[in-house]
């Protein structure tokens, strides 16, 4: 028998590929939710490993808040070009223009909450029955309890009390008409696992993950990128800082960290030594102890 070394990253990778292929086999109209962040970029690599040399059995879907980091959009378009797969864009601006959602006002206004409506509309428009996402259980305590195949009702809602038991490696994808399933192939990965995988696979990332100079202001103790999307006033002092981002979301709710990490190795040592969790840099989670649980119940990713 040949010897082989099945590393923990190999095991996580094999599990994720198995889950992606289950999606392909069990659903009529799946989609991969692509945010431009490192987790969904990792999903794209895993999909290549699951389906190449064939095409992906699903399009990529980007819910675009219109408040993006420019670098993310550039990256997205180049990546789609490289892999030759279909991209569908759901626009929050369109939802606003159609009067389906109302832009928040005030100093802490963000489009983060609005994207749930656009997401649900996009799912309905294309009749997606399964949406693959890059959420991980280590991110947040409500997520720690979510299934890999997680059922959403017709209104996009997650009901934590009615979750299906998920046994062995068997995923029940049966749903009623109108329902859909959110699928999380990297549920069992941690932030560090994702970074180690990106390093091992030499995956290219948007430049904002690495240290760069940027104009920032401090809000609620967090560094925010100064941008036209942030309602700034005289109290806000713009400072030039050496920063990077640990997650990539809407510009109005994603905080930067001061960092000199220019290489993946630097980032990995920085995270290993860090005492702040990744979602600690997300203002959207700070609203209450059950903030994520409430948003997930409402249809959030």
């Amino acid at each position, binding site marked *: *028998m*040949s010897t*082989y070394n*099945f*590393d*923990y990253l*190999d*095991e*996580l*990778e*094999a*599990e994720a*590929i*198995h889950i992606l*292929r*289950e999606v*392909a*086999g069990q659903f009529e109209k799946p989609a991969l939710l692509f945010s431009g962040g490192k987790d969904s970029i990792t999903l794209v690599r895993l999909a*290549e*490993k*699951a*389906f*190449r*040399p*064939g*095409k992906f*059995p699903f399009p990529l879907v980007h819910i675009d808040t219109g408040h993006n980091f420019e670098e993310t959009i550039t990256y997205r378009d180049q990546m789609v070009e490289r892999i030759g797969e279909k991209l569908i864009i759901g626009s929050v601006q369109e939802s606003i223009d159609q009067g389906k959602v109302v832009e928040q006002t005030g100093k802490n206004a963000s489009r983060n909450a609005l994207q749930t409506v656009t997401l649900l509309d996009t799912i309905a428009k294309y009749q997606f029955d399964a949406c693959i996402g890059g959420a991980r*259980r*280590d991110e947040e*305590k*409500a997520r*720690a*309890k979510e299934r890999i195949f997680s059922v959403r009702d017709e209104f996009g809602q997650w009901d*934590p*009390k009615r*979750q*299906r*038991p*998920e*046994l*062995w*490696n*068997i995923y*029940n994808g*049966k*749903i*009623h008409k109108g329902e859909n399933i959110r699928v999380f192939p990297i*549920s*069992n990965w*941690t932030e*560090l*696992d994702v970074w180690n995988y990106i390093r091992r696979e030499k995956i290219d990332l948007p430049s904002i993950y690495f240290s760069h100079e940027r104009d920032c202001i401090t809000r609620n103790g967090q560094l925010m990128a100064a941008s036209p999307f942030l309602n700034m006033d005289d109290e806000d002092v713009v400072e030039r800082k050496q920063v990077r981002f640990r997650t990539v979301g809407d510009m109005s709710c994603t905080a930067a960290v001061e960092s000199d990490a220019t290489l993946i190795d630097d980032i990995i040592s920085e995270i290993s030594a*860090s*005492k*702040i*969790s990744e979602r*600690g840099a997300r203002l959207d989670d700070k609203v209450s*102890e*059950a903030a994520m*649980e409430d948003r997930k119940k409402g249809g959030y990713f």
Partner: protein
Amino acid sequence: MNILKFFTAGSVDDGKSTLIGRLLYDTDSILADQLEALQSSNRKNDDGTIDLAILTDGLRAEREQGITIDVAYKYFQTEKRKFIIADTPGHIQYTRNMVTGASTANLAIILIDARNGVVEQTIRHSYIVSLLGIKHVVVCINKMDMVDYSETIYSSIIEKYKILAQQLKLADITYIPVSALKGDNVAQTSENMDWYEGESLLHFLEKVDTDSLDKSQLARMPVQWVVRPQTEELHDYRGYAGRVLSGTFNLNDKVTVLPSGASSTVEKIEFFDQALDAAHAGQSVIIHLKDDVDISRGDSIVNASALPQESKLIEADLCWMDTRALDTSIMYNIQHNSKITKCKISEILHKVDINTLEKHAAEEFKLNDIGRVIVKTADALAFDLYDDNRANGSAILVDPRTNLTVGALMFRAAVE
């Protein structure tokens, strides 16, 4: 570095969540902002220290009631290993959650309160560990600080447990006296128990053999997806994508395709841009066969010289997971890896009282009930017995009316 998946059985009162919290805390797996959230929470221990149990109580209802309702997955890592914990509730009304958590674990931690010793729930938790065929068992005698770290008490509990272990045929058992609250023997060996010569729990978890290389001859790969690019240059490309459940496939191995029974040979094994000589248990690959055989999702590629059993009538242990009781008059869907077919539960052989391990005849099967049944399937399943090959010996039942997963099945025998 590899992964150890373990599950913890115990109740709130045994200090299960505290033990997990302690493992996370002592391995520096709790980050500053999470700690801050903990400190600002109202729940504190009697002595004012942080209640580590809050770390694993994820949902609002759980925090309100101070109990774990669902299965929560937690992650931590040391220099030696990555750990995945399935934290499940221990009360009898959450038996199904325990079964769920246990199904993916290769090690179980059973918690016993040193003040109470082996009690009803110890029997229940140990039974589930034996039912789900978990290979390694660690029995943690917890709250040793409350019995003055007494060796006598510890030893008498072990003696009682050994009798239960024998009855349940649990093989590989390790006993560790701990105090999750104080940290004794959790990450470090304790100075309070000089008489204990073993390792701390964490050290044991770091080195226990997980035997990731499956040496069995039972090479099995359910086909999940057929890769057919149908492009000009890959006109004839036809690859069978799946995850090897068990055993190993080598190039030129003779294989059988089930259910058709067609024979062929492994021509090529691919993993993305690599060509492999072999595919081992756990790997997700693409296999090509020499012959042009008709294969689709739900079929299995298996070792031709170690075939699985094939039957439409299977004796199995069933754990019922739905609030609506089993209905022997209706058809359910059975999902066995990538294969889905209709089935009926044609007979209930017995039910097990999991607090006493007594078997008794039963007419009905309700939420959390466990027992032996006969499953009659529309299409034959190609399966192994659960004890021989967990991955190919298990299945779930899905209620076609609700689409809920209502039962967990462990195959015990093909009915002649």
